[in-house]
């Protein structure tokens, strides 16, 4: 036997064995594999995409501008306080979007600039205007500062959401940043997507505010709240007594006494009889001190516990509360209380988020899709195999064998890449079966042509491969290129199709050209080939 034939046979056999080894973990579950296997051999497998195993795919957009506005608002308040402390009178500080507008008597300009230079150095004057003894300044953060704030808001949101999902308990979630301000979340096999969405999407800004009992709620609703006050509505829990609570209005004092940033832990506690469960907050030492001060100075006043602008409860402060414990009640079901505790523990999002895209597939649909995919694969490839056999006889059988090895290699490579198989991906595998024989068709047609010219079997094969090869490469390059473009463009499931298409193209070339050529060379070497069945 020729040396090159021998070497190629060995290489090809090794490839088949390796492919089989790579495929075992996909078809045999990990626990059933013997330990000697898992310690030495690959355990990577083809994973099912969310559209096949069921689950939720979410893209959240972080409203970063809101985060910046919140930040500027805080700076504005700090600035107003600093001006008061330095005794600069007659100055007004307003927030205009993400900028701060400052009006003050021109006389105190120097003193004021001193304050600005000190603690507010990250703001620069973008506009200065003096008229009639009053100076107007427009302060803004630098572009770089704004960018880092945006990045921080997204990263912080990501971290918080990751915390919430971890505590909610989803196995193998994917949570990652996408582009400028988006977060991609994938929750495989989730049973209750609505609940997960609630947990993920809540801003969870917890605030303590005083209720103004002297103001009339009706007046405030009709004519707008008095200065320094705002109208907030109640929260409707799903538990007993929660119905209609969202219609209850409260007039509260605008300044926030304390926020959720002091929370060290949050737990669900069973309520007293006939009362639902409640959530107990445990504050960190700083929070505990602050809470004690607030309650001590304001006994008999009503303290509203506000989450995302909904009043959960507004109890009267009976006495000074030490020890850093507070509770949130609100007609919860056990589930609601549990979810709320998760959110409070994980902390607030720095900015509201919005669901830009959602794709949720139930588990039964996924298994139906797999079943239908397998059926169409079997029927489709049987048709192709039968057709090739009838049309090309022996050469057709060879092409069919190449097709089977192609499928083997394709699946093995997918497994070794830990590729995600999606519904369009299955369609891709089925489609590729129809395309895989193309190279064999090209070669066979050419061999037939050469035979018609009166060439010997050996010469016809030689010429057939030689002439068909450039066209085979060109056709596969074009299909591969469109697969690459598709990969660039596509989202999850479509990417799965692009991946199977591109890998499938590579494996068809290998099996259809390399393997069939090897067979012919082997036959020629053994001098058996005088006639080709084609």
């Amino acid at each position: 036997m020729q040396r090159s034939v021998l070497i190629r046979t060995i290489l090809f056999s090794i490839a088949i064995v390796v492919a089989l080894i790579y495929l075992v973990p996909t078809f045999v579950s990990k626990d059933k594999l013997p330990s000697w296997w898992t310690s030495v051999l690959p355990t990577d497998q083809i994973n099912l995409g969310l559209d096949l195993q069921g689950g939720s795919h979410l893209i959240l957009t972080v409203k970063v501008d809101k985060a910046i506005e919140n930040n500027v608002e805080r700076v504005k308040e700090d600035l107003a306080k600093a001006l008061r402390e330095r005794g600069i009178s007659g100055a007004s500080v307003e927030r205009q979007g993400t900028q701060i507008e400052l009006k003050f008597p021109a006389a105190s300009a120097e003193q004021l600039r001193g304050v600005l230079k000190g603690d507010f150095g990250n703001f620069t004057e973008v506009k200065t205007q003096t008229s009639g003894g009053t100076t107007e300044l427009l302060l803004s953060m630098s572009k770089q500062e704004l960018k880092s704030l945006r990045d921080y808001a997204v990263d912080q949101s990501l971290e918080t959401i990751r915390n919430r999902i971890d505590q909610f308990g989803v196995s193998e979630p994917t949570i990652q940043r996408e582009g400028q301000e988006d977060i991609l979340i994938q929750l495989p096999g989730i049973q209750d997507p609505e609940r997960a969405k609630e947990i993920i999407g809540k801003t969870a800004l917890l605030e303590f505010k005083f209720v103004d009992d002297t103001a009339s709620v009706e007046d405030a609703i009709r004519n707008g709240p008095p200065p320094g006050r705002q109208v907030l509505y109640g929260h409707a829990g799903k538990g007993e007594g929660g119905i209609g609570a969202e219609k209850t209005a409260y007039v509260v004092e605008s300044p926030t006494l304390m926020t959720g940033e002091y929370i060290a832990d949050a737990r669900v506690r069973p309520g007293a009889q006939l009362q639902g469960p409640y959530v107990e907050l445990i504050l960190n030492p700083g929070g505990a001190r602050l809470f004690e001060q607030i309650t001590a100075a304001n006994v008999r006043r009503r303290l509203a516990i506000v989450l995302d602008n909904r009043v959960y409860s507004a109890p009267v402060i009976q006495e000074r509360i030490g020890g850093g414990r507070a509770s949130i009640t609100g007609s919860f079901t056990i589930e609601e209380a549990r979810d709320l505790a998760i959110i409070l523990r994980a902390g607030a999002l720095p900015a509201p988020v919005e669901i830009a895209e959602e794709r949720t597939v139930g588990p039964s649909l996924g298994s139906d899709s797999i079943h239908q995919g397998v059926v169409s694969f079997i029927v489709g490839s049987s048709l192709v195999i039968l057709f090739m056999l009838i049309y090309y006889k022996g050469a057709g059988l060879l092409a069919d064998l190449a097709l089977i090895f192609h499928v083997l290699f394709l699946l093995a490579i997918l497994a070794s890449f830990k590729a995600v198989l999606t519904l369009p991906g299955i369609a891709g595998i089925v489609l590729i079966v129809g395309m895989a024989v193309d190279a064999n068709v090209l070669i066979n047609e050419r061999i037939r042509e050469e035979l018609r010219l009166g060439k010997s079997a050996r010469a016809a094969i030689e010429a057939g491969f030689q002439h068909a090869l450039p066209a085979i490469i060109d056709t596969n390059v074009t299909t591969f290129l469109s697969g690459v473009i598709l990969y660039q463009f596509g989202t999850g499931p479509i990417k799965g199709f692009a991946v199977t298409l591109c890998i499938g193209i590579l494996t068809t070339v290998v099996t259809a050209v390399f393997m069939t050529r090897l067979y012919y060379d082997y036959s020629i070497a053994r001098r058996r080939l005088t006639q080709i069945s084609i």
Partner: protein
Amino acid sequence: MELIKPGTKIQFTKYRHVAVALSSLVNLTVLIFLFIHGPNLGVDFAGGTLVQLKLQDHVAIPDVRSALGSLATGDTVIQDFGQQGFNEFLVRMEKPSVEIGTLGEQIRANLSKRFGEKGFEIRRVESVGPKVGEELRQKGMWSVIGATAMMGVYIWLRFELRFGLGAIVSLIHDALVTIGALMLAHYEFDLTIVAALLTIVGYSVNDTVIVCDRIRENMRKIKRESLESIINTSINETLSRTIITVSTAIMVLVALFFLGSAVIRPFAFALLVGFFSGVYSTIFIASPVILLWETKKRK
């Protein structure tokens, strides 16, 4: 077995004027419809929400609508989906779930009032916001256009400029014919359709490659004959190959179309149309373009 007998000599280029006129008419009609009516955009591109429901017992569409109650507004479209007798429905709403809030929960609540908690199943929810939809639409369009141009450039580099032009013209033809067929069959355009169009572009250029390859080979071999006759010979010589490769692809696509998941059906349909069109356009569109270029140059 031989499909096309050796020595077959069909004068394909003779029919080129009829074919070009016919194809131009078809393409123009599709373009006009695209501009007037626009394609039926799925939620991927138009934004909105799609819910796939499966009911335990047989119900009619109006029943589903009334069970949904206030959720089913004027813009809500409810249609049968999947195989007959499976009681599956697609509910399409124009608003994305971000605006409706906890849509899934509301649907669940309304349906369980009518059909009982176990009487139905929400199998799939897809919701896309308007911003994402617009973005995907742009990206999808440009990826198809980019791929088409890339194929032309590749053929130009591997063969000649006129072959590249022929390929581009025939690919535009295939894409338009497929889009027209999808519109005619009332399929919605979504991400899988873009995947199909890109696959068509990548695959139907194959026939052009094969024919071009043979034209080039024959131009070297047969110097005395006209380009038209060389093109005809080349098409005839590669005809059986062209038909067989497409046939095998058609076989698996037919299996996918009839037996595969209903989600994949528009995709399989698009590929079927596109692959057929690819064969036609290689023979009747790409070749005339190559010929036209040549005759122009001579003048």
